[in-house]
């Protein structure tokens, strides 16, 4: 199996990091993984995204043209990636910042109130962690929620490791939502 995933949002929402954390969690479960950020003329407040591939066989190309799964944390990202998704794909969108519902009827959509759940669980900045928890609830094959402790430990710089505990709690909160 190969799952091609796009994480997208505003610069600063931590979508690149969310992709990296998922990769390390899945790698820890001996899956094949790849991660590549978009790196155009990006700037703070602009949109950012990364392509992540998780597979149980060698990954041919790390570049995702038509994602199986999209996690979009803001509206411009949903506008950009919803039309590119594969039929039958899974779209997780952040209802805290996206008022419109997705238009496509040939994909499965999950609205998650990421910012609110993050704030309720200790850090309003951790909407990306809520999305990660929800993602592996909806697609459990990607990674066990237990692997995220290892992933946070390896993905986060020493300076920010003090947030690992609250981030893990927020991932678990996302993972406990009544979806899927």
């Amino acid at each position, binding site marked *: 199996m190969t799952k091609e995933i796009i994480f997208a949002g505003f610069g600063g929402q931590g979508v690149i990091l969310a992709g*990296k954390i998922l*990769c*390390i969690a899945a*790698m820890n479960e001996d899956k*094949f*993984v*790849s*991660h*590549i*950020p978009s*790196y*155009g*003329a990006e700037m703070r407040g602009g949109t950012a995204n990364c392509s992540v591939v998780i597979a149980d066989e*060698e*990954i*041919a*190309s*790390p*570049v995702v*043209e038509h994602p199986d799964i999209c996690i979009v944390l803001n509206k411009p990202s949903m506008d950009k990636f919803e039309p590119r998704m594969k039929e039958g794909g899974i779209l997780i969108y952040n209802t805290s910042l996206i008022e419109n519902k997705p238009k496509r009827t040939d994909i499965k959509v999950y609205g998650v109130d990421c910012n609110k759940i993050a704030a309720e669980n200790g850090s309003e900045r951790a909407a990306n962690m809520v999305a990660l928890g929800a993602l592996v609830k909806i697609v459990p094959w990607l990674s066990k929620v237990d692997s995220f402790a290892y992933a946070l430990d*390896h*993905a986060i710089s020493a300076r920010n490791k003090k947030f690992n505990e609250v981030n893990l709690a927020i991932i678990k909160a996302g993972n406990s939502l009544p979806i899927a």
Partner: protein
Amino acid sequence: MSEKILMKGNEAIGEAAILAGCRHYFAYPITPQNEIPAYMAKRLPQVGGTFLQAESELAAVSMVMGASAGGARVMTSSSSPGISLKQEGISYMSGAQLPAVIVNMMRGGPGLGNIAGAQGDYFQATRGGGNGDYHVLVIAPGNVQELADYTVKAFELADKYRIVCMILGDGYLGQMSEPLILPEAVKELPAKDWALTGAKGRDPHIIASLRLADGALVGHVYDLYKNYAEIEKNEVIYDTQNLEDADYMLVAYGTSSRVCKKAIRVLRAEGIKVGLFRPVTLWPFPKKEIAEAAKKVKKILTVEMSMGQMVQDVQINAGKYCDVDFYGEPGGMLPVVEKIVQRVKSYV
């Protein structure tokens, strides 16, 4: 064996260079390879090495020349327009037979172009790039593990043949993170009985790229080419996939080869027998090997992120055995899986 880690391609090159014994790195920043100087700036002081951000590419490559003449394992890195600026130094080092590792994480060109990954520097890398009769040994890795492994190999080959060895990647490879097992640290570096280490008590060594004496340059160039012939005989690296029963053969290196692998899965699922020939050393090009492979297929499609450069080497070496077609994307664009699939289907 060390633990599997997730690492960005550019950083993998930096760590592999340090594991290979490189303690001197001089460079000038440029996207999309800035993680290499950033990594070296952080890591080299920790291992007693020297990181220096030069005032220009020309200065950086000249520092490389100096460190190499002194016998050090030394590296510089840049991306396309920066590598163009380094060609003077590369030609001088080639003339003076100074080993060095030079990384080119290619971006869109010509000129300053853009910052997306591209493969438009194949001619520059494989034909010398600077003035005069010479070759650079060019290795094109296809994933993060290979970026690390072949960086170590590049230092080894550079010293073995006293040649400039280039790692030719692209912006996509440099920016990509993948699982990596770090290569073993090189414990013992080869002796360099030609290096400028102080001539007290011995005859002086001479490192020069200027040879004005009657006949001196002629003899020297013949000697260089004897060395190149040895490299062509001994150091060809290539890889194949699904060629055993293939009717059609894709030829691609680096990031393009990965897009081809994806296309092969799609085509094979539809019953079309297609395989991949991936040159890893671009110079020396796997001439005999691609000719042999060409004899067994009906048609070749060369795929590049350029308007068609490596395809000339494919044509020269395989063109007499079967048709050679080309599909490329310039300007920092990736090849598109569907376009490869459609092109191959048009042959059936």
